[in-house]
């Protein structure tokens, strides 16, 4: 897998995990939150968040449970685990290193 894709993967994972640090959310809420916070800058397909969610659940970074949404509908809520928090810290650190290395090249002062 080329590193750029890895980077993208890792960033998406980190963003989702970050979202969940504010409390349990369902998939739609996560997508909406990402869209609002990045002012639509992250033009990923909305659906691609779901495989990431299932994968992270498989790896034990997040857990899910069925609950009731604001509108009274049954929805699947995700929650970050301790393992997920550790992963988020590692991912953030890696991202920072990446930015530190790349920023001086792309953004000359």
């Amino acid at each position, binding site marked *: 897998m080329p590193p750029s894709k890895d980077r993208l993967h890792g960033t998406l994972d980190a963003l989702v995990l970050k979202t969940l640090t504010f409390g349990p959310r*369902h*998939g*739609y809420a996560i*997508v*909406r939150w990402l869209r609002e916070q990045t002012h639509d800058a992250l033009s990923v*397909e*909305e*659906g*691609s968040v*779901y*495989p990431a*969610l*299932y*994968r992270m*659940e*498989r790896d034990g970074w997040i857990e899910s*449970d*069925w609950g009731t*949404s604001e509108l009274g*509908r*049954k*929805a*699947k809520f995700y929650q970050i685990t301790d393992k997920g928090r550790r992963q988020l810290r590692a991912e953030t650190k890696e991202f920072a290193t990446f930015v530190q290395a790349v920023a001086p090249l792309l953004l000359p002062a």
Partner: protein
Amino acid sequence: MSRRPRWPRLWRASVEDEVESELAFHLEMTTRELMEQGMSLTNARTEAERRFGDSAAINAECRRYGAERDRRAVRAEYLDELRQDATFAIRQLLRARGFTIVAVLTLALGIGATAAVFSALDAVALRPLPYANADRIVVVHPTRKGEPTDPSPPEYLGYQAVPAFDRVAAAVLQAGITLRLGDVPEMIGGGHVTADYFAVFGAHPLLGRTFTADEDSPGRANVAVISYRLWMSHFNGDRAAVGRTVEIDGTPHTILGVMPKAFDLTSGSEDIWTPIAFSSDDATKYGEHYLKVYARLRPGVTLEQARAATIPAERAVAERIPQHTLKLTEYGADVHRYRDDLVGAYQSLLLVLLGAVSFVLLIACGNVANLLLARASARTKELAIRAALGAGRGRIVRQLLTESLVLAVTGALAGLAVAYGLLRVILAVSPEDIPRLDQATIDWRVLAFTLGTGMVSAVFFGLLPAVRAARPQLQQTLREGGRGSLTRDRLRPVLVAAEVALAITLLVASGLLIRSAWKMQHVDPGFDPRGVLTARLFLPEAHYPTPATIINGFSAIRDEAARIPGVSSAALTSVVPLSGSSMQSSVEAEGRPIDDKSPQANLRFASSGYFATMRIPFIAGRDIATSDNAGAPGVMVINEALARMLWPESDPREAIGRNIAGVAPKNGPKYRSVVGVVANIHDGALSEKPAPEFYIPYTQTPELIWPLIQRSLVVVVRGPSTKGAAEALARPLGRAVARVDASLPLTEAKSLDQFMRASLATARMNTVLLSLLGGIALVLAMVGIYGVVSYFVNQHVHEIGVRLALGATPGLIWGFVMRRGLLPIIAGLAVGITLSLLTTSLIRQQLFGVTAHDPLTLGGVGSLLLVIAVLAMYVPARRAMRVPPIIALNES
């Protein structure tokens, strides 16, 4: 109650539904949001789907991850439970220390004994021989009217043309070779082999090379290959041994190579190999059957095909024989696997042991199952509460089985110590010539077998009690206050009956084999072995070229040996009785037409005084005399069995003066006259009937026989009959031989008692090991019976109390307990005796002097078990008699 993941997991039974509804929810929410912004339903729906992306691919990916997630969850939960169960089991077992110790010891005995026997069987029979393509190596030999015989040189040459074999080798093994490294010559076990011998076995030398076909010819054959053992013992493993010149049988030979350690199969296998070097004369020596022929099957050729291909080759050779004594169709040949030839007999011996030992293991399992049942009864309340709290039946069974597994693994580990000890015993008491038995150790294979046996036993002894204990009888159990119900008692007597049946079967088989061994040990061999020492001497051709020189040499040695202080008589013979070797010849009484079957008899060359030295009594006539020399008329001494075979209608004493043809000298008179008749002896084995035999003066040995017996005879000397006296004569005998010819080596001198012991080795091994296993089985059965009766008394304390309070005498109570205890034992006895009648036919071949249905053994074993059973019941029955009646009032 049920834990949180219980219902989600139920729901998650379908990942498909989960993904489907989650994605649908997302699309619905997006559509709703877009409609709020003013889009129409259709437009909003299309826009939502566009933003979502490739929903089929996303769906598939989610399902894949979801399925993986569920699998991981199940596995994690399972492992977690297993760990929990194991920890719990260990805690429980540590709490019930008495139970645990008894159960582990019982299992250690059963599993350890099985592992030890497996280790021996593995080393001898299961492990492949250390040769490349070992299953293709075969032994080929001719048959005459279906009876096997050894191949002659022309037959060996004939087998070489058989296309089923890709290599064929001939060998004379177990030959005495005189090796001289320094001043003192030494007798070494060796073989004369053809160049292909090593290639047939696919064996490559560790150092140097083996000899070539060129070197395997007369005049060029002064080369030798040595064994790893000899290389170590005589050359200290020095690589310079290759290329050294040593004196072998009086002539210098060059050592070409050293064979690897794996080529030493038994402690008595060959230590040195020299070329057999057939001459062109050998190609027509049809009557000299002294070879062993080994061959390698071509790949894909079966034994049957090889057999079928060898018979025509055999008949082609037979057709060239100048004078036929048999019809051509009576010449045949047989081929069998080398492996079966080597270990076949020992394999069945070890399989009998493995059978015996697995009975011990089953009895041990029965005991532990009984212990577990008792324990489960005591734990009914605990288990009922667990079930009431929601533990499923499967869950409880699994937990109890984990407990059994922990017990079994602990038992197996402790069993390794038992296995180690028992293996020492097996090695100490087994016959010396069992190939590779000395290589038996507790290695990883045995370790794996032991642990495997442990696991299987755990299921055996643990499953039934576990399933039983997990049977939900909540209400009843809780109501009874954990005393357990009476209906549950049925399984325990059945287990005891089964144990008794197994023990009986094992003890009957052991009893029969032990009685056979005892009878064999008390067979009168027909000679008096006490105080007699024997040593075979080989006279090298270089110094003893003619029959006259050989005879003079042996005569001088005998006279010198007779002069040794303490020796009352000395004599010569060609074969020692019970040594495992023999020589046969056909015999024919004068004036009797030979019918179809020309009779065979064992043959010995002997000196005067042989019968006196061996203390074989004369029935009629005289001993071989010094005057019966090469120039005198041919004579022989026969035994009673031969007299009866040749002249069944007359008294053996009347054989004196009659003439018999047998081992006639070339160009000499055909008949020898009988001058003496002696009593029978056991020659081949103590378990065999005495064979017909005849003795010829060694001074009248036909010239062509001397090379066949390698110019060798055995000196026998009789010393005092006290213990160790014979062995003490070894050094004086060596000095006496050296006084005659200092260049002669003495083979290891062996007393007749040693030959007797070796011949009884298998019987002794049976006795020791089966007594040991039978003893273990008895103790285990006793413990089992005690456990059940004692449990019965505990369970019925209340009832006994009531009976006593109502006026029952202690005698009645005693009877009550004994009746209940004896019932399963009687049932087990009946089943066991029936079972023995079936199984003992499997060991019929190993029995001697007893029938497979020997009533004495059956009766003896039955009574022994009854006595043991009554002893085991005595303590709990006494306790029952002393129950204070007041107990009836308590505990209700």
